[in-house]
C-alpha cells in the first residue's frame, strides 16, 4: 500500500460516520440534554430519600440507626425522638443525610429492615454552598410512597407485597392474645 494509505483509510471512516450522523440514529448517539432526556432506568440509584405512606407524619423509619451504622462514608445522622416524659419514640427527631459525603452506594436501602429508605432518581441537585446547602434534613428527604411507586414500579410492587404479608402475619396474632 502507498505511504499514507492508512491515514486515508482512517479519514474515510471518519467521513462515513460524519455523513451518516445526519441520516441514521445509530450514528448520532448524543442527546441534547436539557431538552431531551433519556428514559430513567428503574434500578438507577442516586441519593436516598425517606418514604412515608399517607401523610408526612407517617414515616416508615423507626430510627433504628442501622443505616447510619452501615453507611460506609457515614453520611447519615439520626437522633431518636422522645415524648414529653422523655420516653423514646419510634420515629426520628433528626434525620440528616449529607449529600456531599454520600457516595450513592445503596447500602442503606439494602440493610433497612423496615423498607423506609430508598434510592431516588433525582440528580439535578446543584447548590451554591458546600456544607449546609447539601446537608439534607428530614423534611427535605421525605417523599411519598406514590413517588416511589412511580419511579420504581417493580420494586414498589415487591415491597408492598412483602409488607402486606408481614401485616397479615401480625393481625391474626391479635385476636389470639385477646382470648
Amino acid at each position, binding site marked *: *500500500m502507498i*505511504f*499514507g*494509505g*492508512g*491515514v486515508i*483509510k*482512517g479519514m474515510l*471512516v*471518519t467521513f462515513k*460516520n460524519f455523513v451518516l450522523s445526519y441520516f441514521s440514529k445509530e450514528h448520532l*448517539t448524543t442527546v441534547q440534554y436539557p431538552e431531551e432526556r433519556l428514559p430513567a*432506568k*428503574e*434500578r*438507577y*440509584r442516586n441519593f436516598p430519600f425517606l418514604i412515608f405512606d399517607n401523610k408526612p407524619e407517617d414515616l416508615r423509619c423507626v430510627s433504628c440507626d442501622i443505616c447510619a*451504622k*452501615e453507611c*460506609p462514608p457515614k453520611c447519615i445522622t439520626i437522633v431518636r425522638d422522645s415524648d414529653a416524659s422523655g420516653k423514646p419514640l419510634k420515629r426520628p427527631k433528626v434525620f440528616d443525610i449529607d449529600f456531599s459525603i454520600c*457516595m*450513592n*452506594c*445503596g*447500602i442503606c436501602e*439494602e*440493610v433497612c*429492615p423496615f423498607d423506609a429508605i430508598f*434510592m431516588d432518581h433525582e440528580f439535578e441537585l446543584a447548590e451554591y454552598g458546600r456544607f449546609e446547602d447539601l446537608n439534607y434534613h428530614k423534611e427535605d428527604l421525605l417523599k411519598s410512597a406514590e413517588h416511589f411507586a412511580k419511579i420504581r414500579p417493580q420494586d414498589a410492587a415487591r415491597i408492598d407485597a412483602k409488607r402486606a404479608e408481614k401485616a397479615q402475619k401480625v393481625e391474626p396474632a391479635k385476636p389470639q392474645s385477646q382470648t
Partner: protein
Amino acid sequence: MGLLRFPPPVTADPPFCLADARNDRQVAMEYELKESQTLETQTLEVSLGPQHPSTHGVFRMDVVLDGETIMKLKPVMGYLHRNHEKLAENMSWLGSMPFTDRLDYICSMTNNFAYALAVEKLANLEVPERAQYIRVIMAELTRLVNHTLLIGFLLNDLGAFFTPVLYAFREREKILDLFEAIAGSRMMCNYFRFGGVKLDVTSDFIPRVRQIINNYPKFLDEFEKLLSENEILMARCQNVGILPKELAVSAGVTGPMLRASGVPYDIRKIDGYSIYNRFKFRVPIGEKGDVYDRYYMRVLEMRESIKILDQAIKEIPDGEFISKVGAQGARTPRGFKAPKGDAYGRIEAPKGELGFYLVSDGTPKPYRYHVRSPSFINLTILEDMCLGQKVADAIVILGSIDIVLGEVDR
C-alpha cells in the same frame, strides 16, 4: 552537566557604550563558534504534571532532559491517596465493597470481583452457578470497556485529540447503559456481594449482551481500520518504549503489558478462578513489547473477550443469584464475620493482576486489607522504558501502561 562558558571578563574597566556592548556580543559569538565543538549543554529538569492532560489524572513525572532525550525519569505518586486500605480496616467487610469501585474507576466490576473472591476464599462461601456466569459476563464486559477506552486515550496522547476517544465512548456507553440497568450505576456499580451478586439480571439482559456481542466485532473492525494501519500511529508507536521479557518478569509487571512482551501469563488460564476454566479462549502475546504491541494486544484481547461472552451467555443457567449465607450477609453486613485467617484473592483485571490480601481476626472488620493493584506495579517500570527516548514518547509510553490514578494511589 556543565555550565555554558562565557568569554573571560575584560580586565580593564572600559567605559560602557552601545558600540562596546555590541562589540562584546560579537566577541562572545565568535568565542562560541570557536568552542562549539566542545560546548557542553545544560540538562533541563521538567516536571510533567500533576495537572497535565497526558498523565490521566493527578500524577507527576520529574524528567531530566538533554535536549529532547530523557536522561532520568522519576514518577511521583500519591496525589490521589484516599487511605483506602486503612478505611477498609475500620468498616464491615461489605462496607468496603463500594470503595473498591473507586480504585480503578473505569472497571468497577472487576474490582468488586477480586474483593468478593478474596472474601469468599476467606469465609469459604459457595457461589451459585448463575451468579458465577453473571460475574464472568460482567468482568468481560468491563474488559471491553477498559480496553476500548485505553486505546482511545492512547491516541489522545499521540495527538489525535478526541476523535478515537469518541468512537470508544460511543461503544462504551452501550455497555455502561447495560450496567446501569442491571446494577443501578454506570461506573460505581457496587454489584457483587459475597456469595453472589446484588440483584438478578433483568429479563432483557441476555438479548442486550447478545446485541453487544454482535456489534462489537464490527466496531473493532472499524476502529482498527481507523487506527491500526495509520502511518502516524505506526511511526510513533513501533519500537518505542520497548520492555524486554526478562525485565517485565523481574519487575512483576502483569496483564497486557507482560503479554505484549511475549510472556503468555494470564491468570484466567493459570488459576482458572471462578469458572474461567470452562471457556475456550486464547491468550494473545506480543513479539517486541513496544507500544504498538501493547496497543494491538488490547484489540486482540477484546476479540477473545467476545468469545468468552458468547460462550457464557449460551451456557448461563437459571437459579439463585446469591447464596443464602450471602444474602443474609448482604442484609446485615456487621453480622458477617469471616473466620480467623488470611486469604489472597486475585483476578486477571483488565490492567493486570488485581489481588486483595485480607487478614481476619474473627471480628466483623478486616484486620488487614491490602490491595495489589496492577497499575501501581506496572508503573514502576516506567523509567526503564523511557530512558533514551524522546520526551514526547514518554507521554505515549505512560499512556500504553494503562494507569488509573485511583488505583495507583488508592
